């Protein structure tokens, strides 16, 4: 088949395929993400008011958000929230917790080792790999700049 025919078809597909409503999706993401961040801040403030130092209060916030997210995943509710809120639900730590726990749920039928053990990081794995690689790379740049006396 001629490439021009394919190209013409691909362009036509692009022009008629409905696009997601970006402003509406962004508004929903802002709302859901905002609510999650408010809950997180609420946990920090509460922990602080109970006498925790800044770092401990932040840890409580992460810990509880992960817990809530995993429980919601188990009850089949997180996917519904993410379907509505998109990146608003996925970008905070809640999305990572959902990525791990949904894999655990999905692959448990394939056993503890080859099911859960192997597939647990099916979604979270790339985040960890490239998160570590990026932080390592940036750390190296920081070290070089430090040695050169720039910083």
């Amino acid at each position, binding site marked *: *088949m001629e490439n021009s025919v394919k190209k013409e078809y691909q362009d036509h597909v692009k022009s*008629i*395929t409905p*696009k997601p409503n970006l402003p509406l*999706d962004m508004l929903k993401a802002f709302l859901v993400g905002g609510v999650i961040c408010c809950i997180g801040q609420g946990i920090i403030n509460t922990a602080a008011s109970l006498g925790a130092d800044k770092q401990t209060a932040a840890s409580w916030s992460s810990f509880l958000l992960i817990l809530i997210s995993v429980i919601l995943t188990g009850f089949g509710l*997180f*996917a519904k929230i993410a379907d509505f809120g998109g990146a608003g639900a996925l970008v905070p730590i809640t999305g990572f917790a*959902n990525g791990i726990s949904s894999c655990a749920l999905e*692959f448990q*039928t394939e056993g503890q080792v080859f099911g859960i053990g192997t597939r647990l990081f099916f979604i979270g794995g790339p985040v960890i790999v490239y998160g570590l690689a990026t932080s390592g790379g940036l750390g190296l740049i920081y070290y070089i700049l430090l040695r050169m006396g720039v910083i």
Partner: protein
Amino acid sequence: MRDIQGKTSLCFHNDVFILNSASIVGKKEGEGPYKDSFDKIETDPFFGTDSWEKAESTLQEQTAFLALEKQNLHPDDLRYIFAGDLLGQEIATGFGMVTLGRPVFGLYSACSTIGEALSLGAMTINAGYADQVLSLASSHFATAEKQFRFPLEYGHQTPPSSTRTVTGCGAFVLSSQAGAAKITGITTGIIMDYGIKDALNMGAVMAPAACNTITRNFNDFGRGPGDYDKIVTGDLGVVGRQLLFDLLAKEGIDISAQHMDCGIEIFDGDTQSTHAGGSGCGCSAAFLSAVLLPKIASGEYRRILFVPTGALLSPVSSNEGQSIPGIAHAVVIEKG
């Protein structure tokens, strides 16, 4: 040689009847516009088992036995089974067809598998290699998500062009004995690759294959859209339907008056948030059994062109950046 029709079709001169059929679908399909048409709606997504894969095998097994029971048949009355599903190594069929204990051909043609199963079954009966065969295909929402996309509870958004895999199975007893409908011809799919890579826009992948198969069917049989009461594609969805119409328009063909798409019909897109429609082997198979065949039996449709459509991708081919080829198998079904 007398059954060869045109360049790529067959016109059967011996009788190939669809003696009977059965459809079982899941809960969401059972809440759709055709909820009263299916033989059984299973509200337990696990079908009484403890894994998605076992659930789909059970779905196949139950549908096969239901199709046989309706006609008081026993598996021993079948000479061959033509069956397929969407899973890797076809495990829904591999495990689902064990208890029938009959010779099996396992098929894969993505969501167009029922078209291939009916075609091969009809060829077998027409040729006199069998007096009775079973053709079936299944899909399950959860097994397909796990096979092709993400874990079920992973939160993510899908674009408006995406479809939802139907949990369902359609099983058909093909026979040389008289039944309410018969298969009179087939036009087998040619794999078409227009370079589409978006796995969430399957309609765009499959529309060229559907256009190609429908056009070849018209040419081979010397027919036009008006020779069919309905031209029913498998799971093009709303995006694919538009593209099919646009592609056919270039060939000077307009099927808009006859066209129907199982994927668009099986769900109510407005209330069931299924985006472009339903998809999967079970979509067209269950719809044919539950909705189309009764209308052929009643005489509402005298002749239809049933064109299940499939997208031949795997997670590996997608990850390797390959485009997605499409296929569509046409089966001519007439009143018996």
